[in-house]
């Protein structure tokens, strides 16, 4: 193991049982070209335990797990399963060794049915029919057993993310995995879904299966894991028993400094309403009504958090406000109405109106992954006069200079404007988007899922930035599926369900439990 362990703690997760550890990795190293993603990593995981892995973005967690699953080939090191050395040359070998993995970005064929995805690669014989029949039976059995119900004939693209994840788990169970690896499984789940997942994981553990869980959420680590390993910059810095540690200590192990786990903010001083929404309806491409009459207002100097299970119209709400989806109803910004048909208004004109927008999906919307950082830093604002050299040309050198400053201010690492966006880690990508949108000094900031997949060091920073903008008297509309985030950031909370607002609450006067009920469409009946 590496010599430079910052904290000096080296608790090997001592397996309680006499049996050999379910997984033992010895001296795993992996380089992607010049990037040393994993360096001489050793770890062992006891049978029948849930083992957490945490670490900053880009620490090498996914790489390590992908090696275990045979997706990447390690440059050096060996893998032992149940004490026996195995050669994991590809995923086939991993599956044969009883390993299943749920990747952060699901590996599902979107236009296949659930059933087809489950049997893919594990079919019986050359014809599909018997395989499908058998899978249907087994799937039913499995879903009953683990409360993993999904419609076997549904197309993946029609399923919610939570259900897609279930399919991934079912895939692993169908292949009779004894070891299940989950890479950031809760990043896209609602608290209820996450709880449900954890119940399933506990059930699996109690059956003797071994589980490895990668997550950025310390709460989850504390709640469900038995042991936890911390990774930093490609190395394994510590492995500790969960019962013997605390979130603060883990955070410090990860980031190498003390981290504020609470958002530190003063009470809001709201002013005039900046955003007023009246009777907003949105119908999507398929003709489904996604937003069914919403009234909302956000005042200057306040953060309105919108809680809700993904897929209940929040995305569409943001997209209409951001100007790239049409809707009907009335929306006023600073008292002036904006055109919702899309005919005279698009993302550009919204930006000119002082609306900035951090989209939910940084890969597909917020960034052009093939563009360099500086090009992304003006994405959407490329018409702004200050970025033009003259009437014809853009001021590329100036933009690069501005980007360098922004990157330093927002602590984007590495602060190189010429790096392509795709070569930054998720957290740093998010910081680029935030830097761009916040820096415009907008009257209204729309934020969707600001910290999805982002490590705690970066989360702390991002939250600070949002609060600071509020304190400057700006209005902020925050959409997040993280109840934690909603509760700690918002000054006011509205809950969306099925395209409607189910109710508004003040963070101090509500609880996760109550919000959870509202998110499920169950109202107390006292408001609306």
């Amino acid at each position: 193991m590496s010599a430079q362990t910052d904290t000096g703690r080296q608790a090997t997760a001592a397996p309680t049982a006499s049996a050999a550890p379910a997984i033992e990795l010895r001296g795993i190293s992996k380089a992607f070209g010049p990037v040393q993603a994993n360096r001489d990593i050793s770890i062992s995981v006891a049978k029948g335990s849930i083992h957490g892995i945490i670490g900053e973005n880009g620490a090498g967690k996914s790489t390590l797990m992908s090696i275990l699953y045979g997706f990447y080939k390690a440059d050096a090191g060996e893998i032992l399963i149940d004490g026996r050395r195995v050669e994991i040359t590809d995923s086939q070998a991993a599956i044969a060794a009883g390993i299943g993995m749920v990747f952060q970005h699901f590996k599902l064929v979107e236009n296949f049915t659930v059933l087809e995805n489950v049997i893919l690669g594990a079919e019986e014989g050359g014809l599909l029919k018997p395989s499908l029949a058998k899978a249907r039976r087994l799937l039913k059995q499995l879903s009953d057993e683990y409360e993993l119900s999904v419609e076997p004939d549904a197309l993946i693209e029609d399923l919610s993310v939570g259900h897609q994840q279930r399919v991934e788990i079912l895939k692993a169970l169908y292949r009779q995995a004894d070891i299940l690896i989950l890479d950031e499984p809760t990043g896209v789940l609602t608290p209820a879904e996450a709880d449900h997942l954890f119940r399933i994981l506990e059930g699996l553990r109690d059956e003797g299966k071994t589980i490895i869980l990668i997550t950025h959420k310390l709460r989850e680590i504390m709640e469900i894991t038995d042991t936890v390993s911390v990774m930093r910059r490609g190395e394994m810095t510590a492995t500790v028993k969960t019962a013997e540690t605390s979130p603060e200590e883990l955070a410090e192990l990860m980031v190498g400094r003390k981290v504020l786990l609470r958002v530190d903010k003063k009470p809001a001083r709201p002013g005039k309403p900046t955003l007023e929404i009246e009777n907003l309806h949105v119908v999507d491409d398929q003709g489904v009504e996604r937003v069914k009459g919403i009234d909302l207002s956000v005042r200057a100097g306040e953060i309105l958090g919108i809680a809700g299970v993904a897929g209940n119209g929040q995305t569409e709400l943001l997209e209409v406000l951001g100007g790239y989806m049409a809707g009907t109803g009335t929306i006023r910004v600073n008292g002036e109405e904006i055109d919702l048909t899309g005919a005279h208004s698009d993302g550009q004109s919204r930006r000119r109106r002082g609306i900035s927008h951090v989209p939910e999906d940084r890969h597909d919307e917020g960034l052009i992954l093939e563009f360099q950082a500086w090009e992304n830093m003006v994405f959407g604002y490329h018409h702004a006069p200050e970025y033009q050299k003259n009437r014809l040309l853009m001021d590329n050198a100036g933009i690069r200079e501005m980007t360098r400053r922004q990157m330093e201010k927002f602590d984007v690492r590495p602060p190189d404007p010429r790096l392509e966006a795709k070569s930054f880690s998720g957290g740093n990508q998010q910081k680029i988007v935030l830097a761009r949108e916040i820096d415009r000094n907008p009257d209204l900031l729309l934020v969707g899922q600001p910290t999805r997949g982002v490590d705690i060091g970066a989360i702390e920073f991002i939250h600070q930035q949002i609060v600071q903008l509020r304190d400057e008297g700006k209005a902020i509309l925050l959409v997040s599926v993280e109840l934690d985030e909603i509760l700690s950031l918002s000054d006011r909370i509205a809950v969306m369900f099925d395209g409607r607002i189910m109710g508004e609450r003040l963070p101090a006067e509500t609880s996760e439990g109550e919000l959870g009920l509202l998110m499920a469409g169950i109202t107390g009946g006292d408001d609306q």
Partner: protein
Amino acid sequence: MDYLTVIQILDSSLRLATPLLLTCLAGLFSERAGIVDIGLEGKLLAAAFLSGAVAAVTGSIWLGLLAGVAGSLAFSMLHGLASITFNGDQLISGVALNFLAAGLTIVVGQSWFALGGRTPSLFGGGRFESWNLPFSDAMARVPVIGPAYDELISGHTALTYVALAAVPLSWWVLYRTRFGLRLRAVGENPGAVDTAGVSVVRLRYAALVIAGVLCGLAGTYLASLAAGFVKDMSAGRGYIALAALIFAKWRPWYALWATLLFGLLEAIGNRYQSIALGDIVIPVQFMQALPYILTVIILAGFVGKAIPPRAGGKPYVKER
């Protein structure tokens, strides 16, 4: 237009559609597996040349068929080497193969036969005979369905029936077998196939093998029909097949209809080269461009958006 003319036009459509259909299905397998194939034209040409050459020398079209398939396969594997093994650009590779076939067939043909890239004419066993289905003579006398059976259904060469049979077979393979499931999956999301423990590389090569064989059949059909190879005799059919493939939205049955439609349009264009409508004479050029014009119109008016396999054209790269 009388009934018999209609039958004859349809008959001609079928003959013209056969090479398109085989080529289109070749493209279908390849693109369903995520390998874009604009090298169909080249494979067609290579197969036509080799089958023509071998059939001319041996006097057996069956040996010609073997050679044609082998040639087309070789081109397919070269495409695989570039686009699967070395993650190269599939479009460039396809363009290169088209050039390569156009050049090599003539250079090699010239050095073998010294006929300027042509092969000697095929005759007798050097060509496929047309199959007269049972009772076609007797049936011919039955009114209405008789001529249809005799002219339209009966009397084509073996490869036409093979092409027609290839449609349900392709459908069955794609949608009813394990191989088909994996093939479709690898064109949509190779990562899913890879993590399911199936080799992406092997699947894609398998798809290219099928594509190679089908193009080989199509090329041999051309050589047999024209009784020999003439330079550039594929005459853009590979590109038309590609268009038909998009038209067909990458589905076997639609491919049949799409290629039959192209065949039909060409057959009609052949028959009615210039039409006088009162004082206005519609020029030949217009009639000859009509299939292409109609394709555009149909595409714009009825087909709408065709969504290709999602992983198409992109090499599967895990580590960069």
